[in-house]
């Protein structure tokens, strides 16, 4: 099975709030020193899903990513996990929040790659949390899509996809080519082996420019303007409930809870 996986490099989502700061004039996050970007954790699960299918059926996994060609961490990690080939499409000028421009460029890259059975991506990127790229790509490519998958099975060339929703479980069946976005219920993404890392370091990553994919991004980009980006503090002042022992303190807390409950 020919599988294309879209991966994105993001600011480490586990970055402590103290290290998170925003350039208010440029409306963007200031990359913290000593914290390199990481592969979007949901995309790592998409790579994992691709590897599970390849282990069962064989085939090839191509990783594609938009971004600064000098920053290869995410695609190198995907190669180290076991992906076969990788392409970075230079996209410095894209606005972070422009899901249409990104989906457009990724779709163009998919078309340039040509034959594929399945496109996988993470359910959302852990920076802008839009969760739209996969669905918009499916529209631009005219292929069926199932989002936020928990499990993908391939039987006789057909895909059976299970997904978890807010109030239940759903199972879908669809043919190929198709696009599936993957959610955290997929399980754990594998950690690259030492051998995988060595092999990945030797691999050539193809570098494409927007000219390689067709320079017509203006058709879809720039529908919304970012007016402002600001840090949002969720912090509150915590009143610690004290007591001689837990029983006493918990008794006081019970009174506070009862009070709030009455309001």
């Amino acid at each position, binding site marked *: 099975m020919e599988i294309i996986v879209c991966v994105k490099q993001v600011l480490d989502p586990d970055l402590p709030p103290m290290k998170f700061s925003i350039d208010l004039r440029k409306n963007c996050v200031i990359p913290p020193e000593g914290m390199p970007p990481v592969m979007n954790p949901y995309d790592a699960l998409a790579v994992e899903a691709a590897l599970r299918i390849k282990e069962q059926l064989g085939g090839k996994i191509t990783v594609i990513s938009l971004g600064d060609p000098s920053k290869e961490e995410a695609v190198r990690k995907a190669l180290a996990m076991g992906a076969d080939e990788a392409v970075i499409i230079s996209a410095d000028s894209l606005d972070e929040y422009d899901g*249409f421009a990104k989906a457009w460029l990724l779709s163009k890259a998919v078309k340039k790659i040509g034959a594929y059975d399945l496109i996988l991506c993470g359910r959302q990127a852990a920076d802008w949390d839009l969760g739209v790229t996969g669905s918009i790509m499916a529209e631009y490519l005219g292929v069926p899509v199932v989002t936020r998958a928990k499990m993908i099975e391939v039987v006789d060339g057909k895909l059976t996809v299970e997904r978890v929703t807010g109030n239940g*479980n759903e199972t879908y069946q669809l043919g190929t080519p198709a696009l599936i976005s993957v959610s955290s219920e997929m399980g754990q993404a594998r950690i690259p082996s030492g051998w995988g890392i060595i092999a990945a370091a030797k691999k050539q990553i193809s570098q494409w420019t927007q000219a390689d994919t067709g320079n017509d991004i203006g058709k879809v980009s720039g529908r919304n303007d970012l007016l402002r980006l*600001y840090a949002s503090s969720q912090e509150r002042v915590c009143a*610690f409930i004290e007591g001689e022992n837990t029983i006493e303190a*918990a008794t006081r*807390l019970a009174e506070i809870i009862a009070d709030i409950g009455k309001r």
Partner: protein
Amino acid sequence: MGTEKRILVIGEIDHGNKLTSLTQELLGGARKLAEQFAGSVDLLVITAGNQELAWDSICRGVDHVYVVAHPGITLCDVETITSVASEVCKQAQPALCLMGQTDLGRDIAPRMAARLEAGLCMDCTDVSYEPEQDRFVQTRPTYGGKAMAVLASGPGKLQIDTVRAKSMTPLDCEQGRAGEKIFVSDDHVQVDTKVKLLNCERIHEEGIRLEDAKIIVAGGGGLGGQQGFQMLRDLAHILNAAVGATRVPVDEKWVPHHMEIGQTGKIVSPDLYVAVGISGATQHITGCSGSGKIVAINKDPDANIFRVADYGLVADYKEALPVLIEKLGEKVR
């Protein structure tokens, strides 16, 4: 319908065959926006059967109700719903299309926006209108809630927004309010066959739904197992509360997935949120930071949860919860 500026709300129906509370919130929010430009609020209801609920919406601030009734439609069929909703958008020509940040909204909003060449903002916590610029301004959390982004709609373009639950205020029902019901012919409804639904299990939650609860008692990895959650359920029962969880108990299969609160689970904003054995990872906090008051119980005095809580108790939950259950139980009696 002329040049009047219109807002179209994509409605969702719950298992009790009523508009969901989120849809009612959207209608309240849409009415407030529409008053600023003397526009109208329209509602689209896509249903396989009962159309009566459409009338109920008129008293809640709707001017035109579009009803698409087709026996083959289910809300799991994203492709068909995308086509139908896009078609109605072309017919109604709204300036703004609102829907909930639900499983359905997450799926149809980007696809409709791609088809209709519309602007798109996901998971908005606020939508306002700027008359000077004649544009909609949306606020949404990013970076797992560490930042807020404010985005403007483009001139003369349809703007599609999904809205987070509890961000807008529903209107009370105004009896006798006038509105128009428009049946959309289902001739063009072509049920998609490329993606076949094999199974659609709905979990019937016991007790109060997380989305509707005024009080939520939630547990994290610190509970150590299913037994801890039994204790939480006892407390929830006394408080008339719903029970939620963080990622760890879900991943460990102590509790089912639909109980998850956080970035990949449900976003809740009850009046009172009691966090037990929860460390306070950003991905969880983003799901509950809109709560009125947050009470945290954790053994570790340095746990991040205390930074976002109003009241904290540093204690082993196994010692603290029985006391809470006993004392609060007395008060209820």
